[in-house]
């Protein structure tokens, strides 16, 4: 049987330190860089053929008289839901990226979409490729975005 007396202060200190230390240890043991399929895709992403290099007529997607066409990427299943993009190409350059599907099962997903997707789009337009960084705090959505974007570019360049 335990002694009726105990040292409360020492116990409080001990349990606090154990808990904080334990949580930090668990988090610390996890990888701290983004890995996975999207990472590999990004690494091997072929640069999108520049307008001058591509003399061929565009294939796939829909085109209009003004030389603008849209291509839909693959639907990529992420942990939180599907991601699918549609890109608009004008004169062989990506002029817009819009989302067909995004994870939207709960408000948290929508919140993440709201900050992550504009950032990813900005990066994609600047890079003119799928070779872009993931957005911190939206790892899964970023990976889905990059994969779907790459597939759209592959189709367009195909």
């Amino acid at each position, binding site marked *: 049987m335990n002694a009726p007396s105990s040292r409360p202060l020492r116990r409080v200190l001990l349990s606090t330190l154990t808990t904080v230390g334990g949580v930090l240890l668990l988090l610390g043991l996890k990888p701290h860089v983004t890995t996975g399929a999207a990472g590999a895709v990004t690494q091997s992403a072929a640069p999108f053929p520049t307008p001058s290099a591509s003399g061929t007529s565009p294939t796939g997607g829909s085109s209009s008289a003004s030389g603008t066409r849209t291509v839909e990427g693959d639907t990529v299943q992420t942990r939180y839901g599907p991601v699918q993009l549609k890109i608009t190409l004008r004169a062989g350059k990506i002029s817009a990226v819009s989302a067909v599907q995004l994870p939207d099962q709960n408000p948290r997903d929508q919140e993440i979409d*709201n900050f992550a997707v504009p950032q990813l789009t900005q990066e994609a337009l600047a890079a003119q490729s799928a070779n872009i960084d993931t957005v911190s*705090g939206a790892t899964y959505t970023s990976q889905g975005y990059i994969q779907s974007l790459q597939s759209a570019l592959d189709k367009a360049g195909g």
Partner: protein
Amino acid sequence: MSTTYSPRQARHAVAPPGRRRSPAGAVLLLGWAGVAAVLALWWQDTGAVVGPADWLIGAGRIAGLLTGYSCALLVGLMARVPVLEQGVGSDRVARWHASLGRYTGCLLLAHITLILWGYAVQSHTGVVGETTTVVLTYPEMVKGTIGGLLLLVIGLVSARAVRGKFRYETWYYLHLLTYLAVFLAFWHQLALGADFSTHPLARGFWYALYVSAAAAVLWYRIAVPMRLNLRHRLRVASVVREAPDVVSVVVHGRRLSELAARPGQFLRWRFLAPGLWWTATPYSLSAAPRPEMLRITVKAVGDHSAALIRLRPGTRVWAEGPYGALTADRRTRRKVLLLAGGVGVTPLRALFESLPARPGDLTLIYRARTADDLALRYELETIARLRGARVHYVLNQADGRSPRLTADLLGGIVPDVAEHDVYLCGPPGMAQAAYQVLRSAGVPAHHIHHESFEL
């Protein structure tokens, strides 16, 4: 002194029964296994931790999972499950509940702070705006917020420093709101917990945890007491003044042997009289239970105990129990020392009467202020005479100074104290001092059996 309670000769003055192992170790192991399972669930379900938002949210999720787990545990610990109340001991379980409760309050605060902060960092918004969004638009979060706030208020009121400022009943009934709070907070865990949305197995585990806690409460706190009181129909038979501020209450009932109460145990008593019916108070049986009657002996320390002297015979009684592990099961040695301080003599009086012992093996030391304060004195002396046991009183000196309980004093009364099992019951200060003295006199810790309800 009560004539109806003339002590009886113990039926079997034989060797002590084999010690029943305390289930405390197994219960603790089970509790920790649950913690491991919860952490494993988080581990298995978490990918990379990238950037400050992931660290904050990760820590917040661990805190949240542990809070949810320990809420179920807290409810389960107070469900009056026999293996806890009678095996581990009600006092020890209550202490577990109190320390786990304090810990859970801190976890809850950490969960709320870390999650909101992490979400705000992640979505590049302010903490206030993020809080509003989370509370108002996330599923089940209005309920979750109310539940969380209730839990924090209850935790605050239960904190040692604040608790004394409230009446016991206020604190007690506020505490019952915990059930509502835990129920309200349950749903956001399933709706928003990323670990539960993707794993049916994890969801099953969580439901099982909460359903078993709820079932234990419904069964052991409601169904079992109702059956007990319908079956035994307890009423006050008589009230006897034992000492200036000590009274005994004799309670009659039917088929009390089926209650299976053992000497050393207590029940929670609710006397259905004006001003008393809304409080259930634990009092030890002060005599071995008889087939048709039970007796408690109470010192007037609060409003409730002081009012017991005015109880009229015939008053209905609602009782719950028996609880407590300070019984003959704890014993492993032939010789037994019972060490009582003040009204702590009551459960020891019941053990003194009933513990199997040969003449000379049983000693009672009774610490009190004056000879007038020695409640149950004549009963104790009668038992001693009948059983060949010894009673020693340790009283204040004539000038009012209290004698220090020392190893020497103890050795003078019981020279071979180290060979004894010791049952200890008294006010917290006395019990603590006595424990230290017993240890220094060479009594191993696992041979000192005590019950203390001080948190």
